[in-house]
């Protein structure tokens, strides 16, 4: 299949935003392109643009539709902006992408679904953490809740579907997997993914200069830690 390196569809998201779709299915290379495009668009700091939101298969631009710079044609301006950024060439992958190290305790008391995942995947429970942390993951999109990053790069051996009934409350910091992706819950909320560990890091803190631990496009390395180290880091 030819990969989409150009917008495939322009979908108005109401009258104050537009979704520029590159792919209707998840393709990690298309997502990487979307991340670089988002950085290029964001760097222009245009006064009519309110938010630049890279998503799994495309880019959402939120704008002030009545800003004078748009001359009453926000969609045309948004498309022209994207075309121009693509034409001028996107920033290199390596440059801006950071690698975030995330300590995770994969021990059973922090991993409510470890046994179930072991049963479904036939990977022994004690090896799940090692398998999960062996690969580099990438932030594909942040959504659902502040700082809640959807990360790609899960070892296919660990692929499990979403749980049939979501838990009403999942503890903050829980590391959970589904659909070949990993998420970390920023605070105690309901969630339907399988919990295989927990990080003592705060993934979202409104009091920090950079409230979100992750940015779209970041590379992520999980580092297995012991229960003792978890408690030490959580107390720090």
């Amino acid at each position, binding site marked *: 299949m030819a990969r989409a390196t150009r917008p495939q569809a322009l*979908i*108005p*998201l*109401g*009258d*104050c*935003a537009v*979704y520029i779709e590159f792919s*209707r*299915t*998840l393709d990690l290379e298309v997502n990487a392109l979307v991340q670089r495009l*988002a950085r290029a668009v*964001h760097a222009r700091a245009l006064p009519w643009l*309110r*938010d*630049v*939101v*890279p*998503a*799994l*298969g*495309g880019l*959402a631009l*939120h704008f002030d*539709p*009545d800003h004078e710079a748009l001359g*009453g044609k926000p*969609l045309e301006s948004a498309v022209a902006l994207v075309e121009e950024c693509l034409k001028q060439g996107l920033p290199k992958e390596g440059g801006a992408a950071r690698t975030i190290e995330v300590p995770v305790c994969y021990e059973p008391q922090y991993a409510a679904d470890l046994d179930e995942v072991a049963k479904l995947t036939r990977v022994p429970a004690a090896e799940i953490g090692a398998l999960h942390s062996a690969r580099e993951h990438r932030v594909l*999109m*942040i*959504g*659902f*809740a*502040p*700082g*809640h*990053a*959807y990360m790609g790069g899960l070892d296919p051996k660990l692929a499990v579907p979403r749980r049939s009934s979501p838990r009403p409350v999942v503890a903050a910091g829980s590391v959970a997997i589904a659909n070949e992706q990993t998420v970390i819950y*920023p*605070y105690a*909320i309901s969630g339907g993914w399988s919990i295989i560990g927990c990080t003592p890091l705060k993934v*979202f803190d*409104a*009091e920090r200069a950079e*409230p*979100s631990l*992750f*940015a*779209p496009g970041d590379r992520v390395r999980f580092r297995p830690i012991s229960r003792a180290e978890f408690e030490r880091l959580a107390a720090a």
Partner: protein
Amino acid sequence: MTIAVLRPGLLMSVQDRGRHGLQHVGLCPGGAMDVVSLTVANALVGNPEDAAAIEITVLGPDLHFERDTLVALAGADFEASIPCNRPVLVPAGTQVSITRALRGARAYLAVAGGIDVPPVLGSRSTFMPGRFGGLHGRVLKRGDRLPLVQDAERLSRERFAALKRKRGNAVPWSLPPPTVPDREPIVLHAIEGEHFAHFDATTQRAFFDTVWKIGAESNRMGFRLLGATLERASEEEVLSGPTTLGSVQVPANGTPIALMADHQTTGGYPRIAEIASADVPRLAQLGPNGTLHFARCGLDMAAELRRDLRSRLEPALRAIAWEYGK
């Protein structure tokens, strides 16, 4: 100088125009549900439009004022011990009782100088799901003391003195915001959503023909719309994607949800429609059991609706400025 909460209302929180530019890290702008009424409330006390006010929902509070304070309660018509939609100088030591909404669902109590809670990420709005902003990141409760700016009393007296027409502690005119409905069902204009074609013609018609009722489990994140079950015709998987204020998404149970101020920034449910931005503040004026129906609209019409709203709001703001001698 503070305002004391003697009895909290149903869902009372500090709100301003919200925090922008953080949707890429999953944080929605939030802020006032009816930003038009907030704008009018701030103008009525001579505040800049980005000042923080108290958002009051359906049932109002009892508040105690320590010092002379210029206030305005704008938005839904509330049964209250002060008249609505106009500047009122509340004398020191007075209790203001705001009982219940007679028409509309939300009103904003603005005070001269604004509610002076510390800004978080550029806004004083309370974001309840993340427990930050506003007063301690939560709904207001009995015993809370809302901080006002240091010279609120002087500002209040000076601004009230500047008003051209006065009667006692208030003015003989009022300025109701244009978002409060005269009758129900209200009509909301809706643009076809990304997944409109995932629903068959009968379901698409049902979306526009049904009189929808706001369900009881509605909150600042979203309004549940009761009246019909919208079944998807397409089995095509929907990739999680961006959402926005006014997106109407349809979860598997077929009960649509209209996304409101504290909405998720992405979602995996099909979006059948997007409510025209100019109509979202009017939706915020519906309480539980409020009724609405959808009229189909395109982007040109949505732009027309924004112009209409501006052409009603701007003369009102000019009239208020004139009353203040500006």
